[in-house]
């Protein structure tokens, strides 16, 4: 240790003696999966352009990120740049004066109002994080298995269930690769994946916020019912199957269909480059008269400036670069499945990622119903309730109606516009 300290002091002394002094920036992030990509691709490109700034990517595990970040911010040990979760989590940080106002940042005009919404104050006037990317939900499938069994991409719920039925009858592969151990997949890749089509996207989502819609009525209830139909097609022991298990099963070619977030594309490309990956968008429900698809195009990640940073000028330089087309191009291709939000031109090379992106044109878009405002309360918390209820529907410990009533009554218990809808 001591030698280390000595070394550091020596370096610091040398630097102050007139050698070119580098400003060092540290990025806090939960994207530990992307560590290599930041280290080897993204940051070198920036540092090449700005040789006086050194940037370090220091991720924490996603499950611990919020707690650790908050502790570090309180302690004043957090990095200069803070990766921002969407909506309330970051809004809270901004309100607590941990994040700087970035409304006037050079490059901020590269973003539309919608893109900035997840990281702006409720009145939309102030933006505090530079949007980086959104993720899109849909389904991935194993092309080789589909070919072997003579299946084609399903477009409607009936077709989807028929395909699953055939895979199950064949018996060689797990029809639907998803587990309920970690709970969030059931809500995120299940409920919020096929749900928006049923609740008509933004109409339904805004209806929940205004109190016109309820979780136990209409599309939101039907989404639970549609989710329950997945249950017979999940793999053996799916109750103990965690997210990484699902990834492993699908990457190893042991499963046919994988309810996905677009970020999974990059994971599978890396885990098994030989896997023949195909994709289809969330199916429609002609039997219910619903033929317009709506996808969950979810603003997921942004980056902000720590108010306590001592290197704000360099940090703002970096943030402006994040808003540039160079970054968008790099990011979109280094991490296929994260789609940059800036209105700059970038081209995605990965064909499957391209396909996900093309759904933006074919379908209406919305984002997860629980993210804006509704999960503001600590207990009961709408997002946690959705995880729990969706997992229980798939485990068969709750009926769709029970799940919907559970989520609704707990939302209505604190959220004024929903008070009448028990």
């Amino acid at each position, binding site marked *: 240790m001591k030698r280390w300290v000595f070394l550091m002091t020596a370096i610091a002394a040398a630097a102050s003696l007139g050698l070119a002094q580098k400003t060092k920036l540290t990025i806090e992030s939960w994207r530990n999966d992307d560590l290599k990509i930041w280290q080897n691709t993204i940051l070198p490109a920036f540092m090449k352009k700005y040789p006086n700034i050194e940037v370090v990517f220091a991720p924490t595990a996603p*499950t611990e990120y*919020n*707690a650790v970040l*908050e502790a570090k911010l309180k302690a004043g040990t957090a990095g200069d740049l803070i990766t921002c979760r969407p*909506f*309330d*989590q970051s809004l*809270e940080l901004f309100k607590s004066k941990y994040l700087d106002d970035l409304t006037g940042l050079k490059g901020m005009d590269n973003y539309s109002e919608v893109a900035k919404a997840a990281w702006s104050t409720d009145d939309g006037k102030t933006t505090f994080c530079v949007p980086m990317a959104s993720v899109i939900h849909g389904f991935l499938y194993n092309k080789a298995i589909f070919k072997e069994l003579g299946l084609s991409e399903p477009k409607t719920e009936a077709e989807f269930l028929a395909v699953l039925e055939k895979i199950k009858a064949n018996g060689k592969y797990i029809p639907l690769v998803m*587990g*309920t*151990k*970690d*709970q*969030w997949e059931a809500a995120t890749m299940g409920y919020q994946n096929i749900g928006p089509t049923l609740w008509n996207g933004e109409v339904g989502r805004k209806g929940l916020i205004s109190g016109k819609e309820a979780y136990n009525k209409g599309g939101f209830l039907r989404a639970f019912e549609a989710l329950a139909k997945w249950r017979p097609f999940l*793999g*053996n*022991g*799916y*109750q*103990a*199957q*965690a997210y990484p*298990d699902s990834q*492993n*099963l699908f990457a190893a070619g042991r499963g046919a269909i994988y309810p996905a977030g677009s970020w999974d594309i990059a994971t599978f490309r890396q885990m098994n480059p030989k896997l023949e990956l195909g994709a289809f968008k969330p199916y429609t429900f002609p039997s219910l008269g619903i033929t317009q698809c709506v996808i969950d195009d979810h603003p997921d990640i942004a980056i902000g400036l720590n108010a306590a940073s001592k290197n704000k000028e360099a940090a703002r330089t970096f943030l402006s670069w994040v808003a540039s087309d160079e970054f968008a191009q790099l990011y979109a291709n280094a991490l296929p499945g994260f789609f940059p939000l800036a209105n700059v031109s970038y081209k995605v090379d990965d064909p499957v990622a391209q396909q996900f992106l093309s759904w933006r044109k074919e379908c209406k878009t919305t984002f997860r119903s*629980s*993210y804006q405002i509704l*999960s*503001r309360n*600590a*207990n*009961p*918390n*709408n*997002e*946690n309730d959705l*995880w*729990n209820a969706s*997992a*229980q529907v798939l*485990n068969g*410990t709750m009926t769709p109606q029970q799940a919907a009533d559970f989520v609704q009554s*707990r939302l209505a*218990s604190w959220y004024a516009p929903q008070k009448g809808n028990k």
Partner: protein
Amino acid sequence: MNRKPFPWHIVVFLAPAVLIYTAFMIYPLVDSLWLSLNNKASSGAQVFVGLQNYGTLFSAETWSKPFWNALWNNIKFFLIHMLVQNPVGLLLAALLVTRIRGTALYRTLIFTPTILSVVIIGFIWKLILNPVWGVLNPIGINQPFLGLESTALPTLALISVWQNVGIPMMLFLAALIRIPEELMEAARVDGASAWTVFWRIQLPLIFPTVGIVAVLTFVGNFNAFDLIYATQGALAGPNFASDILGTFFFRTFFGYQLQPGDPYMGATVAGVMLLIILVGVLIYLLGWQRRLQNIQF
């Protein structure tokens, strides 16, 4: 006793421990307890609210339901340890004290899981019990034990027993070794079987250790957090079937995913945990230890 000038040496002996302990444990804890008597006003400022948070925790349904659930789970978790871990630890110690060949090796091997990180233990068992890997499928164990509401908690408790059994074993062993050999030899000469010697001589003599082991288990279990956090996550699924006070506290205090952290209610949960543990230890001190002293003296 004897009249002396001010006993500086007592201060010198006590000061380092008391200072470090006060600064890094008591002061932060008091700080936390103080938080539990406060809450955020609508303006965002901190205001003193007395015991109101505790009232909320016990009476408001959104708080009391998860709280009682966590407490009840915690009691089950503790009971499994008492019924499995400590008898097994005692049994192993009783076998080891016979000084058969290889005692040191056995002891070392059995204690091994205890020294491993809970993060690692959790991860290993999650792998082994995972039907997807299917290590145990050949011997007919292919149930998703950690994923079912009925089995998740007992499974976790048994993993914890597996890891921690070395501690009661060591404590019992240390106590058993201290029993004078002559005492047992005399009994054996009188024709007592090994079983009788154990029940009549060894067990009564290690009774203080039984008490210490019980209270250590109690305190350890009501502080437990890591194993469940590492294997089940902070939501302690499925459907909070494995939620204990430690995970409940963590979630409340630090928040989870979109759930914002609530330091005031978190501190309140911590306060209740403190109370429960305090009551348990008092029962031990007043009940168990006092009665023992009556026997001994």
